[in-house]
């Protein structure tokens, strides 16, 4: 498997570590009204899509960046790779 790093080019998957659903970057607010419920959903509920899936990979043996990899779970095609930092620039609190 190859992950095409947006800055470093195609790299073998063995340089990376998988974490899980990319939704893990959307950690709920600590002090919102129903934060317990939100945290429960954040921690325990996941989609299991057939087809496109956004997931988190860490380039541990590379530039140590966390990446959002869009992968087709049926064909295993990697459709898009982005740095979390680049995706979230506009969302800074």
């Amino acid at each position, binding site marked *: 498997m190859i992950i095409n790093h*947006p*800055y*470093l080019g195609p790299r*073998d998957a063995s340089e990376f570590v998988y974490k899980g659903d990319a939704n893990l970057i959307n950690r709920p607010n600590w002090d919102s009204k129903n934060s317990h419920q939100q945290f429960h959903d954040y921690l325990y509920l996941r989609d299991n899509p057939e087809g496109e899936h956004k997931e988190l990979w860490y380039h541990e*043996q590379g*530039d*140590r960046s966390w990446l959002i990899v869009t992968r087709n779970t049926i064909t295993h095609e990697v459709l898009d790779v982005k740095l979390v930092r680049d995706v979230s620039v506009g969302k800074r609190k």
Partner: protein
Amino acid sequence: MHNFSLRKTHALNGYVETVNGINICELTDIEIFALAIPIGKERTAKTSFKKYFNCGMPDVGKLEAIHKNQMHILRMSNDQLFAINKSSSKSEFRKIFIGLGAKFYITEQTDSWVGLKVGGNRINECLERICMIDISIEKFGVNNFARTMMEHMGVIILRTKDHEFEIFSASSSIKSFLHAITTSAKNI
């Protein structure tokens, strides 16, 4: 008052050997500094970098290291640079890093890594046994570098000449890494 004094030892005792035509040598006189770029202060950092190094700071994703005055400067990631200094005049560079210290977070990394200089006409054949990335001269020219892994060990590989590389790996596992290199050399 005491009279103990600490003696420096090199992780590989200054290993120098030619194995099956591959020259392998421990780099014993280098310094490595990690420079972290403060978030939100990238512009100041850039200016400061230019002032002290007299060249532009390499951009993210730049795969070519800056090579100046026996120093290589590598853009490792979004917020991090590595400076590898091979010059014998260490004090000058210390000054630079003290100067830069106001604009970067600097952490000395000299002891975390051990560098090996490896070369020879068949060096690519030797390294292709353990290096996953394409280091053919067309794709990976002089001064190109990459952080990757070889035999489960993290490395920074830097091409210094057509037939020569410097490879840096963690000091604690450097004996295993040296073994990986010599095995590759023997096996070609």
